[in-house]
């Protein structure tokens, strides 16, 4: 997200700032309320720190420094507001009752902020933007760049979102368990935006995946017993572990079965496997745990050939019962093909034909299965048909190359 061409020191300071951002904002909102104004004040304090610390050094208590500077900005802003509104000096009431910058950080503030940012009143795009700014500590410009929209548009999106949640009580909501899936979904969307942007023109988007992992890890530390949080963190780690192998030397996409597994990130795989194994032993598995378990089977296989497809099919059987969506059922059909042969997979695909609609994915899968069945002419036609349907140039290139490989 940020300029990483600077010194390691600068990067270190940026990490530090982002880690503290939700804690500083939480402290201010608990003290003064006014989430929207407090959020602006924290951004200003973060910018001030990013300017000053590299030159003058990091203060001894960085969090306290940020809270002090942000409170000063906030009280200034509130005083100005008050003065405008009432022409009455009420600033005395705004002074903190006791020095509070030395309080231990309330980690739970991060959660309260996440629930606020993922409020059901907000659209998914607004939830994402607000989460990245208020919890992730990113600037509006950085978020705008990552999603390739003009900065004023992103600024408007964020201020509209803030206006909508104005007055919402700050704290972990009573029905938090019910609202947790919305928070996890937002984090998952941020991750996917970053992960799938590999061939896109905007390199900065890739760092969204790292940001999503960082935020999900923070939630996992706060809710270590929540199985789906552990599942989502595991899924992200196990997917991101393949990042280096996922693109070829020229940036082309490399499918899972052709990836160089020596380039997978072993530490991330170990952490992901440990997380999902522990989560699965603690009760009925949710969709993220199941997806993570499937990713774990792939990541633990020494080669594509040695992949335990029986295990994967079993996991998909459970997953499609929980989430009977077209993507899940299409993936299950692939697993069926790997266990019972391509013809069995093609038969499954036929059953889904109506539901899957006109996207390019069913044709692409059909092409792969026909190719495995040795029906090259039909496979070629399926690849060509998929290429004609997708709107993505890298996907068109991949599908046309697959078709061309099967001869004229």
């Amino acid at each position, binding site marked *: 997200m940020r300029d990483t061409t600077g010194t390691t020191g600068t990067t270190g300071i940026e990490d530090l700032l982002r880690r503290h951002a939700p804690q500083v904002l939480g402290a201010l909102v608990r003290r003064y309320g006014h989430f929207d104004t407090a959020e602006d004040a924290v951004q200003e304090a973060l910018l001030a720190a990013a300017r000053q610390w590299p030159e003058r050094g990091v203060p001894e208590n960085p969090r306290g420094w940020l809270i002090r500077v942000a409170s000063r900005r906030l009280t200034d802003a509130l005083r100005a507001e008050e003065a405008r509104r009432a022409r009455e000096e009420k600033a005395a009431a705004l002074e903190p009752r006791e020095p509070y910058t030395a309080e231990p950080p309330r980690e739970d503030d991060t959660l309260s902020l996440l629930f606020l940012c993922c409020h059901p009143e907000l659209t998914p795009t607004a939830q994402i933007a607000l989460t990245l700014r208020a919890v992730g500590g990113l600037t509006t410009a950085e978020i705008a760049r990552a999603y390739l929209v*003009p*900065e004023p548009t992103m600024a408007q999106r964020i201020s509209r979102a803030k206006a909508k949640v104005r007055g919402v009580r700050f704290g972990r909501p009573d029905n938090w368990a019910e609202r947790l899936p919305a928070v996890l979904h937002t984090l998952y969307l941020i991750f996917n935006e970053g992960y799938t942007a590999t061939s*896109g*023109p*905007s390199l900065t988007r890739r760092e969204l995946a790292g940001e999503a992992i960082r935020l999900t890890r923070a939630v996992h530390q706060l809710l270590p017993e929540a199985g789906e949080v552990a599942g989502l963190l595991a899924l992200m780690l196990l997917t991101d572990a393949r990042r280096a192998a996922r693109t070829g030397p020229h940036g082309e996409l490399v499918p899972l079965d052709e990836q160089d597994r020596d380039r997978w990130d072993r530490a991330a795989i170990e952490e992901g496997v440990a997380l999902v194994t522990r989560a699965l032993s603690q009760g009925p598995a949710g969709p993220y745990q199941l997806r993570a378990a499937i990713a774990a089977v792939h990541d633990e296989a020494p080669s594509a050939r040695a992949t335990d497809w029986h295990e994967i099919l079993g996991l998909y059987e459970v997953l499609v019962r929980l989430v009977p969506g077209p993507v899940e059922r299409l993936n299950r059909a692939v697993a069926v093909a790997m266990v019972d042969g391509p013809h069995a997979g093609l038969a499954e695909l036929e059953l889904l034909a109506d539901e899957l609609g006109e996207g390019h994915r069913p044709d692409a899968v059909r092409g792969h299965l026909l190719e495995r069945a040795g029906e090259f002419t039909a496979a070629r036609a399926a690849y060509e048909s998929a*290429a004609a349907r997708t709107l993505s*140039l890298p996907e068109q*290139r991949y599908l046309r*190359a697959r078709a061309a490989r099967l001869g004229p």
Partner: protein
Amino acid sequence: MKYLVMVQGTQADYDGMQGKPTPGSPAWSEAEMQAMFAHMGAINDDLSETGELIDAQGLTEPARTRLVALGADGKAVITDGPYSETKELMAGYWVLECASLERVTEIADRVTRCPLPEGAANRAVVIRPIGDGGGDI
């Protein structure tokens, strides 16, 4: 002042980018594709940074064009692609808010310096000032 900045391409250019060469439009290698993405991406990033970017989009190939006209019988006449392989059509655009025509020209000049495969046509970039909708009446 708002400007529409357009890049142009033919169906043959798109085929080349999908890996299918034709005379005058070579197939692009993966490295060439990535170099193009990087060039355009850097322009987008910079325009986003300066606040001049309003919108930027790439269009799909000319073959996917649909024309809708009003027929003599009062019914819509719908024609789906294709155009001749060599007809230049808009391939992508930026909507920009720029201080001057000189500044947009500078940006268009940078666009024309996109790395291309050997033998590919370097097509002109088109600048069209956007009309002012009437303003405050």
